[in-house]
């Protein structure tokens, strides 16, 4: 009778098969992580109180400086949307960081991805500049770099120092909730939404405190508390995009 033995070759075979299967699972998991909306852990959210917004445009300029955005591009415009009583109502429009983002679905190269904390990011080294995401975004939140941004940034240093690399010509760019400030702040043990050094530049600079930031999964975060205290709405909720930017409608009593 032949002795049943588990020799070196069998061992290698099983190891190889196992490793391949594990690697495959890992790939599938990564695909799922970037291709579908994350739900666990920290989820950053922004609340904008339209009663407090005076349309000063400080957030527009701080954004341009901190993210080194070209003068002809605005990641975070402030729109005049009407009047309540005799007061003008403004609507600032950052990227909505949708949980079901149309831009992530349509990108042919997976250059638009969800971070685990819900921020929709663009990989500027991967983007081919096809602009399908611009066509798909219901909020007009994306800008194409039609020409190369050279020379000094006119918003620097008055409105802050640039903290990220300037994007090359021919890619699509957008608001990132100042992910660089969040990531660096978290490394220093700070809390985004509470400590300025871990909070988006537009939130810090707002002179009336119209912007409130934080982790929406943490009931004690500033944004969670504010949204509990006020009724809010999101833009184009009918589309099912599940934005992470909440608006508190302007009320003439609070203005």
């Amino acid at each position: 009778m032949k002795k049943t033995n588990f020799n070196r070759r069998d061992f290698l075979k099983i190891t190889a098969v196992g490793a391949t299967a594990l690697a495959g699972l890992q790939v599938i998991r990564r695909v799922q992580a970037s291709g579908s909306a994350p739900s666990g852990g920290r989820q950053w959210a922004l609340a904008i109180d339209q009663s407090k917004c005076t349309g000063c445009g400080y957030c527009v300029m701080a954004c341009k400086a901190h993210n080194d955005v070209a003068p002809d591009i605005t990641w975070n415009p402030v729109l005049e949307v009407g009047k309540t009583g005799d007061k003008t109502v403004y609507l600032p429009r950052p990227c909505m960081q949708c949980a079901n983002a149309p831009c992530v679905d349509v990108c042919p190269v997976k250059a638009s991805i969800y971070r685990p904390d819900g921020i929709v990011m663009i990989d500027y080294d991967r983007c081919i500049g096809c602009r399908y995401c611009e066509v798909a975004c219901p909020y007009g939140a994306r800008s194409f770099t039609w020409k190369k941004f050279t020379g000094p940034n006119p918003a620097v240093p008055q409105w802050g120092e640039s903290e990220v690399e300037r994007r090359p010509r021919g890619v699509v760019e957008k608001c990132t909730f100042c992910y660089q400030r969040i990531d660096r702040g978290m490394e220093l043990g700070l809390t985004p939404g509470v400590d300025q050094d871990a909070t988006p530049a537009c939130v810090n600079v707002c002179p009336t405190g119209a912007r409130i930031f934080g982790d929406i999964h943490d009931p004690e975060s500033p944004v969670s508390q504010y949204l509990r205290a006020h009724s809010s709405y999101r833009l184009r909720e009918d589309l099912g995009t599940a934005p992470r930017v909440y608006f508190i409608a302007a009320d003439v009593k609070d203005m």
Partner: protein
Amino acid sequence: MKTRKMLRFSPWLAWVFFLGILIIAGAIAAFFVYWKGLSVTNLTDLVPWGLWITIDLTSIAISAGAFSLCAIVYLLGLKRFQPVARTATFIGLLGYTMAILTLLLDIGRPDRFWHSLVFWNVHSLLWEVTMCVTLYLGVLLLETLPIFANFEWLRSRWPKLAARMSQAHHLAPFLAVAGLALSMLHQSSLGALYGVLKARPLWYRPDISLLFIISAVACGMAITVLASMVSARLTGRANVDDSLLDRISQIVGWILVFYLYFRFWDSLAMTYTYEPGRTEGLRLLTRGALSFNFWIVDILLGIIFPMVILVNKQTRSMPFWRMLALLLVVSGVAAFRWDTNLSGLLIVMSYVPGTPTMGYTTYRPSLIEILSGAAIVSFGLLAFSLGVRYLRVVDHQVLDHAETGTQAQTLKEIPTPSAD
């Protein structure tokens, strides 16, 4: 003496010279695009897709003759259409080449064109289209190998290689299946690419994909017949069997009947209730800036008029009317692509509560877009002209072109003794 002869005017040289000038002008324009970036176009963040996308979509539509005629020949077994399918396959190769050239202009980072082949996003229709186009280009290259084997210079220089290339015709039935599958995926996906966007209510409808593939089949067959007829009239190097072209023209006419019917219901269904963005888009098409394109170029001259001409036997047999009708089919499909793209983009959708739309924007291509686009079309015309002259892509006399050179010659020799 010899120089004088070379300088003598010939229509062929004038044609090549004319196309050459357009191609050079377009190459200069393309150089500006790469040097200065897409800021030299009139594209904006509101209208990021314009003339180039229309050329791109139309090039792919004119290529649809390849898969549909190959399916007729190799899958339905109507072998007599084989020489027409051969012309269509060559046009298909040129069409896809034109589409890829246009895309290389249009994307912001042409140096990263290969990213979609490596970094897959299976959710994206644009990814699916890119994969199918790349694979189908491979199929078309294999399908056109026997055509390139006809090149006289190649046959005299490397006869063995030419014979090898001719042998690829054995693959034709398998390539026809692959071509049909890939085309049925991406010809419709090009429409679905617009149709899946919920943020653009005019596009957000399920049948835009079907309209794209049906119109593409009509357009691809039309341009194949048209190009064959024009070539046969201009040069002795092309000869056609008119009974084949007549029959395909009739098929185009009947496709148009169904296409018109689907277009009618597609448009009517969108008028039922007011929907922000969709209703404004329809107004743009039927009464606004795109209305001439929509009613005249697309519906009346692009579908109804050629449909009547091509279904009716008498008008179809008159070469002038048939050629005119086929040309109008092609321009109608181009107008449909242009309108589909722009009607969705020109309406600026609003996200402001209580304001469903912000109004209309405008788009007019810049000179650089027009020149580079014209160069790509000229490239297609020049390549087809060279194909007629040197590869005999329009030749209905030899039954099986896929045979090796020697066998084709024997076939030609047969009638001579019997005539004696």
